[in-house]
């Protein structure tokens, strides 16, 4: 397999309403930043891989048609990826797979969501005949899984507040983050209204406009560029409502993580991974994913969170950029995790840089916690 790395990451400013740009303009802003950071001309791009969440969100059906000019796909192969909320991650994996296949030297990949022009909550919950209307967006769907996690491991309620405050404190160090909440702390989180019990308002992700792009290239094209080497990547899926499925600790997440650790030669992720950008759209998913991804034993995740292990200066920093809890352009949210992991090992994360980060993990999940995409990036190829 061809070795590949990220040579450019480009992001937009994330905000509730990017009324200043069209969808095409939004996507292009991320692409221009990625191309600039990769120091690359359009001629060097061999294929373009586009990802976003369901077409029904913005009501633009097959956005790859409308966006072909904006993403520079004219005259080149284009592929559109969709795996619900994990799409930003799976798009990155598919783009990297194009390079690793040896068929493409350099691939541009971009993901986006323009939630201000969309109807994400209700597009997730259509009123189908013969079934009761679920009448809930993602938060309502995940709340029972979180309730079950709390019950299984007798986790105290402040854990959720703690994650929510920590990620927003990190966001204050990331000028691109959507939410900048001065003075954010656990008390402020716990004072906000209950949205989907046990999740409070500030324990939930915002609705954001934004796009994220990356340039991924083969080893022989890197030259003298700063690069985040892709050491392992994988995608896994499971059913939505399959009987016997453990929604709290999904098997697909366990398997996906094991796969990338094996590829990267990681036997102890807690010790060997320096930092991670993990898809945490609702606060409690931090301890749940700490366990699911093998950073600790079952029931120990909330204890790691409680003792600040996931803080930016902790033993296993999670979501230094502020995470999905601070910026959530859904289709892009997974790629932001992958791209931010790359920025960490490239030493380009500026004020939210983890000191001496050499190995980082990017993670995304989607659907009914049923689609997973992950990668490990490293500052060295060895």
């Amino acid at each position, binding site marked *: 397999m061809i070795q590949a790395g990220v040579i450019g990451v480009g992001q937009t400013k994330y905000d509730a309403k*990017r*009324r*200043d*740009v*069209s*969808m*095409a*303009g939004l996507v*292009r802003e991320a692409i*221009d930043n990625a191309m600039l950071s990769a120091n690359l001309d*359009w001629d060097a791009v061999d294929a373009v891989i586009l990802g976003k969440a369901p077409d*029904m969100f*913005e*009501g633009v059906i097959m956005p790859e048609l409308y966006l*072909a*000019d*904006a993403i*520079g796909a*004219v*005259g080149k192969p284009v592929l559109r990826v969709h795996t619900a909320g994990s799409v930003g991650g799976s798009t990155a994996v598919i783009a990297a797979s194009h390079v690793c296949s040896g068929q493409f030297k350099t691939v541009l990949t971009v993901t986006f969501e*323009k939630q*201000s*022009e*969309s*109807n994400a909550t*209700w*597009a997730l919950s*259509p009123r*189908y*005949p*013969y079934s009761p209307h679920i009448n809930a967006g993602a938060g309502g769907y995940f709340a029972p899984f979180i309730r079950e996690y709390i019950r299984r491991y007798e986790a105290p309620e402040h854990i959720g507040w703690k994650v929510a405050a920590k990620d927003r404190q990190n966001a204050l160090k990331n000028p691109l983050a959507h939410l900048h909440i001065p003075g954010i702390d656990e008390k402020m989180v716990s004072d906000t209204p209950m949205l989907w019990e046990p999740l409070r308002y500030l324990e939930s992700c915002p609705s954001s406009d934004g796009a994220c792009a990356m340039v991924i290239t083969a080893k022989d094209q890197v030259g003298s560029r700063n690069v985040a080497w892709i050491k392992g990547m994988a995608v896994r899926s499971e059913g939505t409502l399959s009987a016997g499925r453990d929604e709290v600790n999904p098997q697909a997440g366990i398997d996906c993580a094991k796969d990338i650790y094996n590829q990267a030669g990681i036997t102890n992720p807690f010790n060997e991974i320096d930092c991670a950008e993990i898809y945490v759209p609702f606060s409690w998913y931090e301890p749940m994913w700490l366990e699911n991804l093998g950073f600790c034993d079952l029931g120990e995740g909330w204890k790691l969170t409680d003792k600040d292990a996931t803080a930016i200066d902790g033993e296993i920093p999670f979501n230094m950029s502020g995470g999905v809890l601070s910026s959530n352009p859904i289709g892009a949210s997974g790629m932001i995790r992958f791209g931010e992991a790359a920025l960490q090992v490239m030493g380009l994360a500026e004020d939210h840089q983890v000191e001496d980060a050499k190995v980082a993990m990017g993670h995304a999940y989607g659907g009914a916690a049923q689609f997973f995409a992950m990668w490990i990036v490293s500052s060295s190829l060895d």
Partner: protein
Amino acid sequence: MSDSKDLLRAPFELAYNYKRSNGPIMSKFFEALGEQKILGTKSSTGKVFSPAAEFDPETHESLKEIVEVGPGGAVESFSWIETPQHHHLIKEPFAFALIKLDGADTCMLHMVANCNEADLSIGSRVTANWSEVQEQRITDIKFFTLEK
């Protein structure tokens, strides 16, 4: 196979409300239509796109330079509608046409009305007719008619 008449069916209607932001280039294009002007965008190679495009499909550049084109142009191709249906905007026979406006290098899809099929050919000179009420939409151009 079972008789499908015995199987359950139900209507299912799906409708959502959305918003659209046009961005700086397309906003200028539609605002200008409201002032009875047709704009295009010009690339670094001198190519003019009208309707305005935000990006050049060949050079991949972001297009920023705005130029005025038309209101006259030439028919590049057309499809004659002898019997308009209820959804057509014109109730008399008309043509859907690709019109290359003066000053533009690309074509606009619009309608040519108030003529007979025999009067229309590829290369026919046409000019924009404006709607009575301007709404900053492409239908602010009511249709094109043959130049006199």
